[in-house]
């Protein structure tokens, strides 16, 4: 759903310079150029905050309570949900389905975001510096296209390409009859997500490389540094902050990615059941809402850790 879009070059909230402040420090509403006044200003903010409060904050807090109950949509537990304490959490930690799903999610995030998108994004940016303009535009457009197409569409494109009988991949590799989504489900969604999300890394690294002083690269080249040495000693120290920012954000998004459901629906036999798919199957399909809430809360906590890490990075990188 919503994702923090602030690029690392953005100013941090609350730290922005206050142009009106020093000039007229006497009046409280010195910034208030249109003469809005506090009451009217609050009236402007309240509707938005109300909506966010009800449909974003409340659900997150409610999860805390729901996870402690045996809530179900139908049957006895629907009419009179009982508080079962930490049972859902202890059950989850002993549930092979959950543990399997947690492990698969880790592999999915590492494989497709940390390695796949990040490396491919950097390689594209690095190669395109030397490529002719037409090649550069073409490749960048392709990367962006994979990113902006709706997920229902790209999912079917991959189902078609990996199809056992008529898929393009089997035709290219001369491996007729290989059902990639059944024999290599996790690898398939990892490659899919690498393809799907490289754009963000590309855009971010491209902005980062613009900040590397060309003179330093030039002197490194004159001093006889190889391409790899230039990367390691000149480029990398400059973009380290961007690199970390990128890794945290794409990990967060990949962790919350529901697209695997559209391609493999978690199958076969849970072999590609990442956490979002697992929550959907247990809570919405099977109706175990209490148990599902407990797992939702665990997901929210993991998101919190990643997001706090990201915000701390943003703060640290400010001079």
């Amino acid at each position, binding site marked *: 759903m919503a994702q923090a879009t602030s690029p690392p070059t953005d100013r941090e909230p609350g730290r922005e310079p206050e142009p009106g402040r020093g000039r007229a420090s006497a009046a409280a509403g010195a910034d208030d150029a249109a003469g809005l006044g506090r009451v*009217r200003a609050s009236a402007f903010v309240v*509707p938005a905050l109300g909506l966010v409060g009800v449909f974003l904050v409340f659900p997150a807090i*409610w999860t805390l309570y729901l996870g402690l109950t045996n809530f179900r949509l139908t049957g006895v537990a629907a009419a009179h949900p009982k508080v079962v304490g930490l049972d859902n959490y202890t059950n989850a930690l002993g549930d092979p389905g959950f543990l399997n799903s947690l492990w698969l999610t880790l592999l999915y995030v590492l494989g497709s975001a940390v390695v796949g998108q990040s490396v491919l994004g950097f390689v594209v940016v690095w190669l395109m510096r030397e490529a002719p303009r037409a090649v550069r535009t073409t490749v960048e457009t392709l990367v962006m296209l994979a990113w902006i197409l709706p997920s229902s569409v790209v999912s079917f494109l991959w189902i078609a390409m990996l199809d056992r009988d008529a898929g393009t991949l089997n035709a290219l590799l001369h491996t007729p009859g290989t059902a990639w989504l059944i024999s290599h489900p996790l690898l398939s969604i990892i490659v899919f997500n690498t393809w799907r999300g490289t754009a963000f890394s590309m855009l971010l690294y491209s902005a980062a490389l613009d900040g590397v002083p060309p003179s330093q690269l030039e002197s490194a080249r004159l001093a006889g540094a190889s391409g790899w040495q230039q990367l390691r000693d000149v480029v990398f120290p400059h973009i380290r902050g961007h690199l970390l920012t990128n890794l945290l954000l794409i990990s967060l998004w990949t962790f919350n990615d529901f697209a695997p459901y559209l391609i493999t629906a978690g199958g076969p036999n849970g072999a590609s059941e990442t956490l979002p798919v697992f929550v959907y199957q247990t809570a919405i399909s099977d109706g175990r809402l209490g148990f599902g809430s407990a797992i939702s809360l665990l997901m929210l906590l993991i998101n919190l850790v990643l997001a706090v890490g990201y915000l701390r990075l943003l703060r640290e990188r400010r001079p």
Partner: protein
Amino acid sequence: MTPAQWLRRLGFYLVIVLIAAFLALPVLWLVFAPFDRTPTLATSLPAWTLHNFATLADNPYALRSLGNSVLLAVGTMVLVTVLGALAAYALSRVRIPGRDGLLYALLLLSSIVTGTAAMVPIFLLIYQLNLIDSQLGVVLVLSGGLLPAAIFIMKDFMDTTPRSYEESARVFGAGPLQILRDVVVPVVRPGIATCAVWTVVNVWGNFLTPFILLRSPEKSPAAVVLYTFYTEGGQPNLGLISAFSLLYSVPVVAMYLFVNRRYGFRFHGGIKR
């Protein structure tokens, strides 16, 4: 050039060709299959026809679902842009107590409480509010999720616009609301436009929220209906699926091209699915 340099050039282009092939391969089907008389899952140059689009027009759910997508996208866009712009303006210009903490909390929340992680409580909330299978429920949930980031995008624009316009309008005796309408809105229009496009693209592609909150196919947006086309049992109708996929993709591609040409797709506007 020395042979070594030639070899290096060759390797360079080989890698580029491989990457481009990896990127382009899945999309080719979307380009060719809709125009193929007998579309298969394999990518091939088509025997040209527009027949698949006629099939699409005959399907009771396909075009209707595009209408639903428009409804959801426009509804959410109006709610998010109007409420977001008002809040962003007030937060940008007036020192409301606790503003900085509020903004920090909003930023944190918008990245943590994703539709996926909060799927269960959101589903239950909408269930308790009797809004299951209602498009209003979907619009409200999507708006709640998108508003924090929207406020951020627009506040950023507003922070960078000079206050002097508003101050001079005030000197000439304009009231606050008049200033807002005649001075502020025209000045921050690019920010509002960016936010509107960003919201539409987000909602247009969103699958999960309508998937869990809507029941009847007559109300479902294209994202969900397309999915049911290729997962319901039997032989999938590839002509229908391909033509529908293409029609459904065109608006986001068009919006991307528009934004790219107008503002350049760099990291300043902060547009992201």
